């Protein structure tokens, strides 16, 4: 296992290096000199010449790339123009809000998608199955940002039930901590409820697409497993249907579901950029969009790299999870 783990880590390194190369090329493909891009508009010609020397822009391009790579490796992503703070710190402050939103969306997708999928798969062509397949199609075809806007329109605008933007009423937890999770852990139910009121609509908007997919995959997986011999054996032993379904079928049906959840985490990650913009959620996604609007190139580069490296790490973790669940993969 340790050997497999090491092998996989080593195999990931070139991918990360090539990702940084792609981002580096993208910065250089941008119209204009990187020094113009990386300095604010007020910079004078002398400032630009100075910056070119300081950033090594007068050096050959491969030297520039190696410097860029060395900076990433030492977690130095530069300084934001707009906030004049280190980029890495700005992103770190906003990440908890994004992670909390992603967890909430994931919970919605799994807690609703799997039971619906099992139900539909156990009784194919019943009304539950049809309802599920309609919901699945809706989930896949409805863009998260429009669903979010419609939720705001109906739930906040018309009924005035839930707040339409931000993260909390009291102004605490503006991104820099796990607001709901910490409140729950410290037993502060009032602030936890406040946080839940704010997170529920963005989480539905972000989680619905994944829910539709989880449902469809669970359904087809359950349909396949339910005709296996060992399910018949379990039934023949006289186990009641519920035990058969939840203990024998679901456990084996979950492997493809985990695959899909893993694959879709990337969609969730990039979907959160848009949903955060819709709900003015103070996460790293809305930070990226604000950075693009104010042409804050170091912050854009830093956020794009952070998201991508996070995605690589997540995929790596999921591969490891497989190796734990299914021993065949380790030797395959």
């Amino acid at each position, binding site marked *: 296992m340790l050997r497999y783990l090491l092998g996989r880590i080593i195999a990931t390194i070139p991918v990360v290096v090539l*990702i940084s190369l792609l981002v580096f090329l*993208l910065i250089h493909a941008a119209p204009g000199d990187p020094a113009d891009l990386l300095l604010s508009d007020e910079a004078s010609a002398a400032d630009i010449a100075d910056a070119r020397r300081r950033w090594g822009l007068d050096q050959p391009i491969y030297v520039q790339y190696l410097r860029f790579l060395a900076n990433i490796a030492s977690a130095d992503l530069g300084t934001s123009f707009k906030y004049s703070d280190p980029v890495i710190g700005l992103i770190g402050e906003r990440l908890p809000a994004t992670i909390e939103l992603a967890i909430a969306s994931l919970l919605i997708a799994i807690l609703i998608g799997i039971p619906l999928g099992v139900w539909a798969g156990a009784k194919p062509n019943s009304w539950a199955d049809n309802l599920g397949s309609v919901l699945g199609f809706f989930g896949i075809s409805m*863009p998260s940002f429009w669903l979010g806007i419609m939720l705001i*329109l109906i739930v906040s605008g018309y009924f005035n039930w839930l707040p339409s933007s931000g993260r909390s009423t009291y102004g605490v937890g503006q991104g820099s901590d796990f607001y709901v999770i910490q409140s729950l852990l410290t037993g502060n139910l009032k602030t936890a409820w406040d946080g839940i009121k704010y997170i529920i609509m963005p989480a539905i908007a972000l989680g619905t697409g994944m829910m539709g997919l989880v449902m469809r995959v669970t359904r087809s997986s359950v349909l396949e497993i339910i005709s296996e011999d060992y399910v018949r054996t379990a039934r023949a032993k006289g186990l009641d249907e519920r035990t058969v379904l939840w203990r024998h079928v679901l456990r084996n049906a979950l492997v493809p579901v985990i695959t899909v959840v893993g694959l879709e985490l990337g969609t969730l990650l990039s*979907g959160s950029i*848009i949903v955060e913009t819709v709900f003015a959620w103070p996460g790293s996604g809305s930070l990226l969009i604000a950075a693009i609007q104010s042409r804050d190139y170091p912050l854009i580069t830093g956020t794009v790299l952070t998201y*991508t490296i996070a995605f*690589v790490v997540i*995929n790596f973790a999921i591969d490891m999870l497989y190796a734990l669940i299914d021993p065949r993969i380790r030797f395959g």
Partner: protein
Amino acid sequence: MDNSATLEAEVISERRTARSRRLRRALRPWLTPKVIGGGIIVLLLVIGGLSAPWIAPYDPNAQNLSQALRPPDWLFGANVFGTDALGRDILSRLFYGARISLVIAVMVVIISGVVGIALGAISGYFAGTTDFLIQKLVEVVWAFPPLLLAIAIMAFLGQGLENLILALVSQRWITYCRVSRGQALSLRSREFVDAARSLGARHTRIIVRHIMPNLLPSALVIGTFSMASAIISEAALSFLGLGVPPEIPTWGSMLADGRTYISTSWWLALFPGLCIFFTVLGINLLGDGLRDILDPRLKRSGSGIG
């Protein structure tokens, strides 16, 4: 005389019914509810988009501030779906938006398809080092979360139609490439490829004439799903202000306006969203129907960006 004429007429009508019966039999597997339903929606979109200059009641960019933010007048009024903050007619903008969505999505799907199938066929046919290099490229591009690479491309290269198409193609060719590579790997050792090779055909000819035609059915299925995701991604980028320049009406940028005026003017956000939703639903239904017919084994590969 009379008799032979009726006989002849009978024979002709018999032939005609036989022909229409054959036609119906040939079409029958295609006429599933999914294909019909999805096809009608897509057809309406194409007609609406193509005929936008003739059926749109107003110029999509004609501003009329005295008529700003008018609610929908429904069927018989001046502005059926209302107007936006600059007094522009929503319905006219929706027609023109359909045009843009359609043109971009079709171009993105075709370019991604050509690039993906070609690289996939080359990768699978030659195997070895070529395959390794192409698959490394696939791995790196695929390592970006969906849409993030597109956002980064738009952020660095700036708004514009070419950049938008590049951004949308940047990851979309990969699905074609992966599926084509797998199929090409198994095709390369088939008899007809051996036969072509022993007749002295060059690699290019084998790939273009013998391998690629066999990759088309799956590519068609991937293409429809990829079109749905391209429409959503284009709308998402426009919504974020990263699409085509602002003077071109798109459903995504209309939705962004809708978000701004959400507390006062619900119609701004409702109609463009419905257009995106029904378009994507129609294409997904069509794709699902086509997959059932053409390639039942091809599993859905991700839902795109939702």
